[in-house]
């Protein structure tokens, strides 16, 4: 550790009103003997920054510790060589602004933070950039419908070559089969007859775009910047090197065979898709006898927003029905059209279309629930419904019923297919009877996924993207739309979420921007979101690896493949730098140059723990940098005050938490450990998708250990929160601190 540490303490922003900055400097000088220890009243100003820069240039200092505002503030001021060791200590938002000024506990807190910062900086190494690699600047677009075609055109326009692959013989996807599309121009009262022709011509004639129809992907190997994609099709087999992938495989209609309760199966009950096809071919007639339908009833939300069918709204079925009422009226101006709905979804300018269709006296709209669809005489259909608006049951007999069914994404469930393959492999290996029985059960359950592969990734974690309930690619879509759980692969259009053509075109553009960003960041050796631009990356001391496969399994992004023995193989361009692998590894072989198990453990050990007679407990707070740390900063900005017994250490993700830190904390006499992280579960908000969930699971094991050591398990607690919960933070922290005081001091103090 012969680093030349430079400690720079800022006394501005009321830090000096809260703590004695000079005393801090004296303490630091005495305990750690940094090469430089300086205070300044306005460190982020030109003069302050110049001092640091000068010290670095003159090589007086090669590791900088800035004790001032939060690391989330003034990054552009404190910007030096990105490879240099730089540690920020938060004396403002998490000391001066949220604790009692000039109180001894506040001073003690500031002292501990400076100790922790110096210790960490002492252990950090300058970053090394990833070795230079040739990064492909080609984007693979999977799917040639409106999403894929728009993505291809956008990518080409931005200067990135495209490989566009489509399994059908022609481009155009679903839009090709429509008679008309939703209104595209003000005043949004006319369905559009524009069609896709000009777009398709543009994509086919674009010199940057190579189109492969009647072609499927058989293998995708590699990582962002260097995916090797093998395709097979009408024009033979080919391998393409691409930098990132846009998944634009679109949708298919919900299977109406499951809607027998709504009358599907009766000859004159059809779906909206079937009606559209009929209309595109020519006349709309009753399927039973080819006669005109004088009365048509549209049944909205058919198989949608239901527990037993699709749980969600597909957002396009209402507009589709409105459009189709006009087809019917074109044919017969006196036709009676009934629309039975739960809600009418016509967002934005589409509202004008709704108003127009509503205005016709023979279009009848009713909010209600259809209770029965039965055959009536002469091929007619009798529909019974409970009208919510009239508070009474109604019955109407019509010639044709149209079920407005929803959209199902064309996706493959990666983990499911993997489970199926693993189970088959197990059976083939003929292991124990119970193992075989389990395998057979899995095979039976996952059978429907057989043969559904789209991307065919050679990743250990599975051949396709993990999907959410409903089949949409899993993502933390609130923060990172388009992303998937595989770095460099972005979803666009109806496979990402049900949407109409207009939104799909925008979506394609968004996904292409992410795809391009991924390529550019890879070319600089930098990470993508959430740690965009991060130059650090984990290294694996494989000598001590025991092939337990925890890192391989727990990495949310499948960055780690395995060899036959199970030794992890790291793919740096897939990595998001979260450190979940670091938290998972029981042997602690994973580390970053600026983030390691030892660094955090040392920070924990640097905390001064008063003995039990002083009655000043110490609570370690491990806060994830995505929601929890900002929330703490925001609480400080709002000048919310909370218990000064806390010592906060930011983590990249709660999932990077290694259990040894808790053990170290408790053995040092720290009375409690509070983990603050993003929410997990069905509506998760964890920015690395599985991190806080993993931390929670690992805690279960810790609780057992605690009980064995006769320590109360309540000393460890995980609280899920969002950034917007900063108002609750003082209560969360104070309540935990109060609980710890109740439980009493850690008996291991002073050991």
């Amino acid at each position, binding site marked *: 550790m012969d680093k030349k540490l430079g400690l720079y303490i800022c006394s501005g922003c009321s830090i000096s009103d809260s703590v004695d900055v000079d005393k801090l400097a004296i303490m630091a000088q005495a305990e750690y003997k940094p090469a430089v220890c300086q205070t300044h009243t306005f460190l982020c100003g030109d003069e302050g920054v110049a001092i640091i820069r000068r010290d670095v240039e003159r090589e007086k200092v090669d590791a900088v510790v800035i004790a001032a505002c939060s690391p989330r503030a003034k990054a552009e001021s404190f910007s030096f060589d990105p490879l240099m060791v730089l540690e920020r200590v938060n004396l403002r938002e998490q000391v001066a602004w949220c604790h009692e000024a000039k109180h001894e506990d506040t001073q003690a807190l500031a002292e501990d933070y400076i100790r922790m910062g110096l210790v960490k900086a002492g252990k950090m190494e300058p970053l090394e950039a990833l070795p230079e690699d040739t990064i492909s600047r080609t984007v693979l677009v999977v799917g040639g419908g409106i999403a894929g075609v728009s993505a291809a055109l956008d990518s080409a326009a931005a200067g990135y070559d495209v490989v566009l692959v489509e399994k059908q013989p022609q481009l155009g996807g679903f839009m090709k089969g429509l008679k008309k599309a939703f209104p595209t121009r003000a005043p949004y009262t006319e369905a559009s007859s524009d069609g896709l022709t000009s777009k398709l011509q543009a994509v086919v004639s674009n010199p940057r775009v190579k189109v492969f129809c009647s072609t499927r992907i058989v293998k995708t190997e590699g990582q962002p910047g260097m995916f090797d994609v093998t395709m097979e099709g009408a024009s033979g087999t080919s391998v393409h090197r691409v930098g990132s992938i846009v998944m634009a495989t679109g949708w298919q209609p919900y299977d109406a065979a499951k809607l027998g309760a709504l009358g599907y199966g009766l000859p004159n009950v059809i779906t909206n898709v079937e009606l559209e096809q009929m209309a595109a071919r020519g006349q709309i007639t009753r399927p039973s006898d080819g006669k005109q339908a004088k009365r048509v009833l549209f049944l909205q939300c058919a198989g949608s927003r239901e527990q037993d069918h699709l749980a969600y709204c597909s957002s396009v079925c209402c507009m589709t029905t409105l459009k189709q009422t006009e087809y019917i009226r074109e044919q017969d101006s006196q036709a009676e059209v009934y629309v039975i709905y739960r809600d009418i979804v016509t967002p934005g300018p589409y509202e004008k279309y709704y108003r127009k269709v509503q205005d016709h006296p023979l279009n009848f*709209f009713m909010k209600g629930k259809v209770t029965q669809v039965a055959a009536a005489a002469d091929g007619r259909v009798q529909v019974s419904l409970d009208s919510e608006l009239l508070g009474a049951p109604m019955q109407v007999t019509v010639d044709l019923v149209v079920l407005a069914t929803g959209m199902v994404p064309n996706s493959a469930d990666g983990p499911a297919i993997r489970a199926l393959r693993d189970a088959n492999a197990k059976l083939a290996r003929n292991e124990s009877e119970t193992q075989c029985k389990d395998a057979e059960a899995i095979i039976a359950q996952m059978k429907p996924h057989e043969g559904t592969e789209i991307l065919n990734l050679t990743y250990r974690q599975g051949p396709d993207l993990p999907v959410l309930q409903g089949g949409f690619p899993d993502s933390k879509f609130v923060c990172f739309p388009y992303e998937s759980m595989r770095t460099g692969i972005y979803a666009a259009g109806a496979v990402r979420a049900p949407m109409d053509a207009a939104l799909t075109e925008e979506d394609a553009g968004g996904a292409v921007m992410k795809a391009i960003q991924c390529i550019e960041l890879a070319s600089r050796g930098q990470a993508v979101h959430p740690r965009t631009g991060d130059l650090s990356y984990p290294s694996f001391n494989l000598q001590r690896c025991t092939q337990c496969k925890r890192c391989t399994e727990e990495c949310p992004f499948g960055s780690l493949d395995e060899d036959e023995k199970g030794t992890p193989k790291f793919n740096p361009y897939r990595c998001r730098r979260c450190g979940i692998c670091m938290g998972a590894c029981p042997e602690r072989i994973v580390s970053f140059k600026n983030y390691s198990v030892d660094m955090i453990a040392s920070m924990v050990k640097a905390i001064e723990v008063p003995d039990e007679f002083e009655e000043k407990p110490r609570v370690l707070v491990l806060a994830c940098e995505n929601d929890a740390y900002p929330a703490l900063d925001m609480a400080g900005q709002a000048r919310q005050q909370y218990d000064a017994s806390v010592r906060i250490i930011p983590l990249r993700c709660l999932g990077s938490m290694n259990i040894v830190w808790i053990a170290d904390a408790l053995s040092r006499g720290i009375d409690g450990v509070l983990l603050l992280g993003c929410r997990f579960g069905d509506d998760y908000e964890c920015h690395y998708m599985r991190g806080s969930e993993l931390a929670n699971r690992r805690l279960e094991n810790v609780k057992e250990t605690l009980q064995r050591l006769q320590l109360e398990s309540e000393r460890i607690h995980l609280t899920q929160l969002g950034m917007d919960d900063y108002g609750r933070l003082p209560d969360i922290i104070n309540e935990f601190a109060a609980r710890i005081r109740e439980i009493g001091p850690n008996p291991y103090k002073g050991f």
Partner: protein
Amino acid sequence: MGNPILVEPDTELIRDVMEAGGGDLKKCFQCATCASTCSLSPEESTFPRKQMLLAQWGLKNELLKDPAPWLCFYCGECSKSCPRQANPGETMMALRRYLTTQYDWTGLSRLMYRSAFWEIGILALVAAFVVALFTLPQSFGFGLLSRSGPLPLSNVMLDKFAPKEMVHLGDTIMAALLSLLLLANAARMFLGLTRDGNIPARLYFAQIGSLIVQGVTQMQWKNCNDSDASRNWIRHLFLVSGYATIFTLVVVFLPWFQIQDSSFHWTSILGYYSTAVLLVTTAWMVLDRIGKRTEMHRFSHLSDWLFPILLFLTAVTGILVNIFRLLNLPMPTYVTYVVHMAIAVPMLVVEVPFGKWSHLLYRPLGIFVATVKRKALESASEEAAVTGQALASNG
């Protein structure tokens, strides 16, 4: 919930209502802002949201069962608050016009509401008949009220020109006839409203008081939400008092009220009150309508103009008869008398059973039935609660 509503949209109803003022009713998307705004709509059966939907769907039976259009006094707050400008206030007015045409068994009401030609035509026809009555010579057999003998031109001798016994008889017959027609229509209205429910007769009798009070005072109006409610109610009440006074004078007390020469009689003072009130209120109403001063006045059907204008002209000609008589100007008196009759009679014949005036019975009747239905619901739920308690305590 009962038997399902069998949907067979009555396209004639939809067209009638849309042409009678409900032209924007298809814009309604059932947000219920109108019903929330309305201070008159009762909690258990708010309006006008549902009526907008019934009209959109042409559900005639449901509309005939619903007294709601008559509970509305057209303050127009609903129209002002409607986010789609679907004009629920005017639609309720259109429904009242439509229902008026449906209660009438003769079909004349519908004819006149849908056609200005027929409305004006029939008024003109009746006016011509009245003029003929007074002017054709006796030999034609029409001369019931024509002069028996030479027209007295030296002094006003009204009784020679229009014998008060004859006029009185005519007035009484007309009043009876028109009342019968109106009552018949009201009976149809009542049957339509009460067909479904099994409401015990005693409830009707219990609420008779409210029927009379509402009919006479139109008190409900002042509960309207808008700032003009009290003013409109009081103005209308004066109008009613003026009309009621002159009606009584002409139908019951004509032998005293119609003075045959130029002498003065105290009943004229009551007549002056009526005249003043009628002139002021009707002119005010017409001016409001011209100026589109409030929501209620933004749209005017022909029937909305004819009614106050005819009433105004009746009052004008009536006071002129009085003035000419007092000034002892025979010919002007006689001529004005005929003109007065030729305006008043057609007005009454067309308006009372077939036109806008019918609301004098339809509205209180609607309020009455709505009140009875509410009481029936209340006592039904009370009974249910009592039964429930009894069962619970027994069980």
